[in-house]
């Protein structure tokens, strides 16, 4: 199970990179980056998974005294929570800049933006 989730995550990262490298449309590149982002999050969560254990939430079935042997690693989950939120911020910023670029040149084709080309 861990391997399936982790392999899917790695695959998503590769798909995202492929999309970002081969697409010329800015919006498609942004979507590709969010796909890669999800891949990274999936890999981190998969690292924290342990077979036969349950979510790190204490209740009547997971007693606080036995927690250390019953729950999966909560630290990667907290990390991913942060990563997702930052990912949203980054995506919104990318979209705002893409809009400004479109306003300037009336195109989203990255090849038309030659100012920084050498």
């Amino acid at each position, binding site marked *: 199970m861990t391997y399936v989730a982790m392999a899917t995550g790695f695959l998503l990262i590769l798909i995202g990179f492929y999309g970002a490298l081969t697409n010329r449309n800015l919006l498609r590149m942004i979507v590709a980056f969010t796909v890669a982002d999800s891949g990274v999050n999936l890999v981190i969560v998969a690292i924290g998974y342990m077979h036969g254990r349950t979510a790190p939430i204490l209740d009547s079935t997971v007693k606080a005294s036995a927690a250390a042997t019953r729950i999966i690693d*909560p630290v990667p989950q907290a990390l991913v929570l942060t990563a997702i939120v930052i990912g949203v911020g980054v995506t919104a910023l990318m979209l*705002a800049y893409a809009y400004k670029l479109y306003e300037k040149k009336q195109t989203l084709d990255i090849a038309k933006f030659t100012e920084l080309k050498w």
Partner: protein
Amino acid sequence: MIKRFVALVLLAAIGAMFLTLLAGYEPDTELNLTARYYADHTAEDIGAANIVTAIVVTYRGLDTLGEVTVLFLASTIVGLVLALGRKQEKNQRALLPAGELLTTGTRFLAPLIMLLGVYVFVNGHLTPGGGFQGGAIIASGALLLLLADPLKHFSHGLISTVESFAGIFYVVIGLLGLFLAGGFLDNRFLPTGALGALFSAGAIPLIYSLIGLKVGAELSSMLANLAETEEL
């Protein structure tokens, strides 16, 4: 063509790297030292049933404050970038009205979605969920409103007031922890209560509610800013 080839070669290299990582990966059978500490001490020290929440809000609370700040900066910059050079006089072309289903559905669903968001962040210390998730749900309610009526103008004043107050109170609660309990953002200046009760875990429900309001306001303002760019 050559560009695509270079990209594929690069991806093959990264893929090979990932394969090595995957082949050499062995799942832990025991919690590592940090995780074990959190698992053993959360219940008696923090009193939160959800250990992830205890980590996010208390153990690593300072990081969360920084994270909220990053999100605030992102939403501010989105507003700033999009507001630059925005044409003031908009010729308001009449839009086709949103369909009956969408309009009625929005009236019915938007308040329920907001309520669900509030439920999720108020129960963040007990169930999966919390301030960030609840805030995102609230913003999805705002998105539904925008879909039903693209010309709708959210009050930016109200949004920024909610956001600023949530931010200020977050820091004030952190300082209360510094003076009344063990340190900055320590939740134990309020009683930790019984594990699993709604009013437990000290200041965590309070802090997570503030985070929920703040994140909801920030994401909604991003959505509103992006929606207002629509050329009509």
